[in-house]
């Protein structure tokens, strides 16, 4: 192996990539163009790279423009989220859950709170359930806006415009959330058995105004890219995830639905008040980049429908169980519990094992991005660099969730 650009001391991942090249050459599979046997180059994409949306590092073996092999390296954003739980009471841990997957933080809160409620047998008030669905779906829209915006930004300066348009819309959601919870990203809003505050005066009408405008905005975005021949050429038929892949790699969320797998925990393992709501699970057929983008656009429309129904059905009543003070210290009985929740990126599961004390004995997340990341080596190899960037953008990873 001769690498002209060998760095002084390659780390484990680069060594693995180099070893794989050696092995492929030994098997006679090394690329051999015009008698030049060794023309692969190992490139580090990340952790500081404009297109990885965070600190994901991909060790990419390139043969000219062609991606031969990909080794994802994670852990640059590891903050011991799971270990932290073991030294905090159940209540103290809520703000930390927010920071696991920060793009849709309220959905993570929801998953955690639901697990603890199930473990401790706490009943949630009906009004609080509806408020939870409203905030969760608002954040799903916000999260999909970020996902689609940054994905199109990977493709072009046109996408940079898309990002700004989409962030403009996301800003309104964040304003709504700020009015409701007092925070724009790290809400710390859910409580065991309810939510922290009731909806402020006039909030519902503001929300309705926004929901009326938003579908028009989606149409605008679709007009911007869906009809663009270059965009279609770059996205259709590239990075196909088959149904078998979805099963093999445990892919969930919009990525699975783009491959025609009708897997949506809001339907298939319903929680909260979702069984009472009328919405569709949007799927596509081809499983390529374009379909993953389409599913996200359609899901935003469905979310709008869900929120509108919730606002119509919103019952009166308390938003927390018992007295004004929510149960700050709870001691669930010994036992373990896993609850999966439909995060914007897939199934966000929380597993808690309780030993009957004030602290969880063990907490473990099943993060959708972590599972979706695993298909990267298979999905990216054999594509051009530009395609690889587009594909990794379309999978929509949030490193906060992967590294925890």
């Amino acid at each position, binding site marked *: 192996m001769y690498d002209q*650009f060998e760095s002084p001391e390659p780390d484990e991942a680069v060594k693995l990539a180099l070893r794989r090249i050696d092995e492929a050459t030994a098997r006679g599979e090394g690329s051999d163009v015009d008698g030049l046997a060794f023309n692969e*180059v190992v*490139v580090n994409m990340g952790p500081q*790279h*404009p*297109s990885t949306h965070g600190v994901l590092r991909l060790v990419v073996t*390139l043969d000219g*423009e062609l991606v031969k092999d990909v080794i994802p390296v994670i852990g640059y954003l590891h903050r011991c989220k799971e270990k932290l739980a073991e030294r905090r009471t159940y209540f103290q841990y809520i703000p930390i859950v927010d920071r696991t997957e920060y793009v849709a933080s309220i959905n993570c809160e929801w998953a955690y709170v639901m697990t603890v409620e199930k473990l401790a047998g706490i009943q949630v008030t009906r009004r609080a359930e509806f408020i939870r669905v409203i905030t969760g779906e608002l954040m799903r829209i916000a999260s999909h806006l970020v996902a689609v915006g940054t994905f*199109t*930004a*990977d*493709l*072009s*300066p*046109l*996408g*940079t*415009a898309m990002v*700004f*348009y989409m962030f*403009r819309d996301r800003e309104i959601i964040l304003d709504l959330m700020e009015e409701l919870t007092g925070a724009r990203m790290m809400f710390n809003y859910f409580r065991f058995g309810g939510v922290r505050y009731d909806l402020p005066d006039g909030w519902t009408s503001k929300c309705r105004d926004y929901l009326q405008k938003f579908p028009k905005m989606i149409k605008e975005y679709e007009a911007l*890219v869906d009809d*663009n*021949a*270059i*965009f*279609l*050429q*770059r996205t*259709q*038929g590239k990075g*196909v*995830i*088959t*149904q078998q892949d979805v099963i093999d790699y445990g892919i969930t969320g919009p990525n699975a639905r783009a*491959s*025609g*797998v009708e897997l949506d925990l809001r339907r298939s393992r319903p929680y909260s008040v979702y069984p009472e709501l009328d919405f569709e699970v949007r*799927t*596509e*057929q*081809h*499983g*390529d980049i374009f379909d993953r983008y389409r599913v996200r656009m359609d899901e935003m429309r469905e979310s709008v429908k869900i929120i509108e129904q919730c606002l119509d059905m919103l019952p009166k009543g308390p938003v927390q169980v018992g007295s004004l003070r929510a149960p700050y210290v709870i001691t669930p009985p010994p036992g373990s519990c896993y609850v999966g929740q439909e995060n914007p990126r897939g199934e966000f599961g929380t597993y808690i094992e309780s030993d009957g004390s004030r602290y969880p004995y063990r907490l473990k997340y099943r993060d959708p991005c972590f599972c979706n990341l695993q298909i990267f080596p298979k999905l990216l190899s054999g594509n*051009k*660099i*530009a*395609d690889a*960037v587009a594909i990794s953008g379309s999978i929509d990873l949030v490193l906060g969730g992967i590294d925890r």
Partner: protein
Amino acid sequence: MVDIIVGILRAILFVVISYAVVFVAALVNIVFERRALAFMQDRHGPNRTGPHGVLQSIADAFKMMGKEDFRPLLADPFLFTLAPVTVMIGAVAIQLVIPYTGGLMATSLNVGIIFLVAITSFTTLSILLGGWSSRNKYSLVGALRAAAQMISYEIPMILGLIIVAMVVGSLRIEAVVAFQSGYEWIVFYAPFSFLIFYIASIAELNRGPFDLPESESELVSGYGTEYSGMRFGMFFLNEYAGMTIMSMVAVTLFFGGWMGPFAGAIDFWGVDWIGIVWFLAKTYVLVFALIWIRLSLPRLQVDQLMAFAWKVLIPLGLLNILATAAIMLWVPSWKWGLAVFSWVAFFAFVGLLDPILKRRLRKLRERQPVVSA
């Protein structure tokens, strides 16, 4: 003796003007583009430095000059330094044959158009040098992309320019401008050639949608990844000055150069001052078009880019030359014949390219295997 002194002073004057145009154009274009993009993207853009942020790029230039002169350990020291020094040569030297206005032109070469084409390829060399000598894999890939792209797109650019020489009957740029007096702009006779030239020149400038050599989402910043401070500044200035220079070439060859209403009305020292205004106005319309195009199209992919040059632009350019030659040879009032042919070709190209592409994509989509059961 006096002749020699005047000649030397004249040479110095034009070198100063050329460099001034490059630097001023780059600084103006950077702010112009940032503001225009901001306007189109629903945000403010730089608006704090000076009135409406016009001084932003001057502040940036000083910042860049104040930065550390950094060179990577493994880089080739000589070539790494040489590349940013030579990158400007193309943009400066090209102005030797461009008449800014009546009476303000460095030299009147009898092979002006050939000189234009020859000197534009100089930038490729610097980019290749810079990318190769930085010893960075992103730079290398970016530089190779740049070389492949710029060499490919030079050919359609030449094919577009040949029409100008054919119509005018001279390679001398003064003659081209003189031909267009009385609003007989060549773009009226040969809009299709202009289209080919303009698309190719966008690719020559490495601007979106052809900005693959420095596509920031893929290659960090392509050939310039390892450059920082004023060395990066030289590449950056060249790129943005290139917008104005290319538009100047386009205006000179296709849009009547400095001709316009009242041109020649104010005449000091043998220089037509109104002409400069027209020249700049036309140039900046084209510069704005470049910015607009950059915003509205996604980036092409390497194979699509090459296919577009070799399978679409070059065959069409060759056919265009053939048809133009035939019209000039056999049609009696060939100017009208050429205009009719070229406008038809122009609208056919603009109108049909998108539907044809989309039809192909739709067919591909229908044939695409469905993964859901």
